[in-house]
């Protein structure tokens, strides 16, 4: 029993050393080929059957993660050596040391093409700025303490609050239910619809509003997204009953860009 514990301890220390080595290669820009990948994989494989606890498995996963980063650095190194920009750093360092400042500067000037740009206020922005300045209250007035007016208390109705835009006409949950019903009606026999076909509307603001509501439909378990990365297509599928995803499946966020350009493309495709 104690030998097993000892083996685990030894294995843990070994993996930690591997992680430290990989980290130093990643962070300090050392030669990635210092790390013998085969050797490390053999070590990881050797200790893997010993791991039982989550923190032990995490250490194992962390080792693999850092090893993968080193392999990536090795692949970049090979790629760089095959490009025309590859130069032996020691050779170049020697050459830089030998060249005079004047010579170095002259060489550099042959390859330097500085950006040309102008920073100048335009008549239009000057007029705008003047307009703003004229409308700006003096600082003494802007920083006046807010005075309080004493008023009698009164009553208000729900309609008044809706008019004042303090509350929405429909409760958000109500609005979402209506939206969900619309989604269920619009999906065909396949039970799904292309994301853009569902959120797309005549105007861009309307499209943004629909995308916003759709994100809540998915988050609250009224629908789900089916992403096809190869075809670059996203489908939205409504559920018959809202599902609670919390604690059951791993919840992931899918960022979907709804830019003006994409909306224009979609609109043009609609004819």
């Amino acid at each position, binding site marked *: 029993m104690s030998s097993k514990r000892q083996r685990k301890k030894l294995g843990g220390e070994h993996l930690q050393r591997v992680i430290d080595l990989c980290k130093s290669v990643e*962070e*300090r*820009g050392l030669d990635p080929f210092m790390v013998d990948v085969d050797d490390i994989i053999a070590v990881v494989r050797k200790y893997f059957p010993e791991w039982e606890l989550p923190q032990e498995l995490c250490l194992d996963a962390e080792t693999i993660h850092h090893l993968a980063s080193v392999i990536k650095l090795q692949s*970049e*190194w090979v790629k*760089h050596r095959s490009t*025309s*920009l590859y*130069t*032996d*750093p020691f*050779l*170049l*360092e020697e*050459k*830089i*040391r*030998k*060249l005079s*400042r*004047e*010579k*170095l*500067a*002259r*060489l*550099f*000037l*042959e*390859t*330097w*093409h*500085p*950006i*040309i*740009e*102008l*920073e*100048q206020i*335009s008549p239009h922005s000057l007029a705008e700025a003047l307009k703003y300045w004229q409308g700006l209250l003096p600082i003494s007035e802007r920083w006046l303490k807010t005075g309080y007016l004493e008023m009698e208390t009164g009553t208000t109705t729900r309609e008044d609050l809706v008019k004042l835009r303090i509350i929405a006409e429909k409760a958000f949950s109500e609005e979402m239910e209506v939206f969900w019903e619309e989604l269920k009606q619009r999906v065909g026999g396949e039970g799904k619809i292309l994301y853009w076909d569902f959120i797309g509307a005549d105007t861009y603001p309307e499209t943004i509003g629909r995308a916003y509501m759709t994100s809540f439909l998915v988050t609250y378990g009224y629908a789900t997204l089916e992403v096809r990365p190869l075809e670059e297509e996203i489908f939205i599928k409504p559920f018959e009953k809202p599902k609670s995803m919390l604690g059951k499946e791993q919840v992931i966020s899918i960022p979907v860009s709804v830019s003006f*350009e994409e909306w224009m493309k979609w609109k043009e495709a609609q004819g």
Partner: protein
Amino acid sequence: MKRKAYYARKIKRAAHILFYRRHRRPGVKGWELRKKLGSDYPKVLKILDGYLETLDLQIKTVFEEEKPAGEPTLEQLDKARFYITLRGGLTPKETKMMGWRIDDIAGLATAISYILAKKGKAPREEVEDLLRNKLPGWRVDINMDRYIRSGYLAEDENRQLYLDWRTRAEIDQKALIDLLLGTESEASIS
């Protein structure tokens, strides 16, 4: 005639967009040009580039990733950034007018070529050590900060230096390395 007037108008507009800085960084993205000039903006830029040649200026395209081997696609152009840069080189006298001392330029050349040789990433201490070889110690730190502030170099939290956006836009990296290596070998032959 109508077509000529159309392009003349577009060229003027393109010159305004490219010369005046609109964002925190100079340069304009391809998609911005498409939005302002229309889908034939590559053609407009080509004509403008022809006009600029007489002034020793050029339109420089910096692609998001590596420069495509063949003709760039519209998508690659949309993602690229366009700048107006000097077409030819500068003389040492001209750099003084721009506020660059010979020390500053030699230091920048050293830092950039060393980072290039190190696969685009080098520890700041190593670059500083190399600069100390030619510059007084107190200038090294000031110069490094200046290169970073101007966008030639970038530094991460581990004090690793990288080449930043301005180096990609302004410096012909391959020519720099070739010149450095070529000059030295000439010197050793003689």
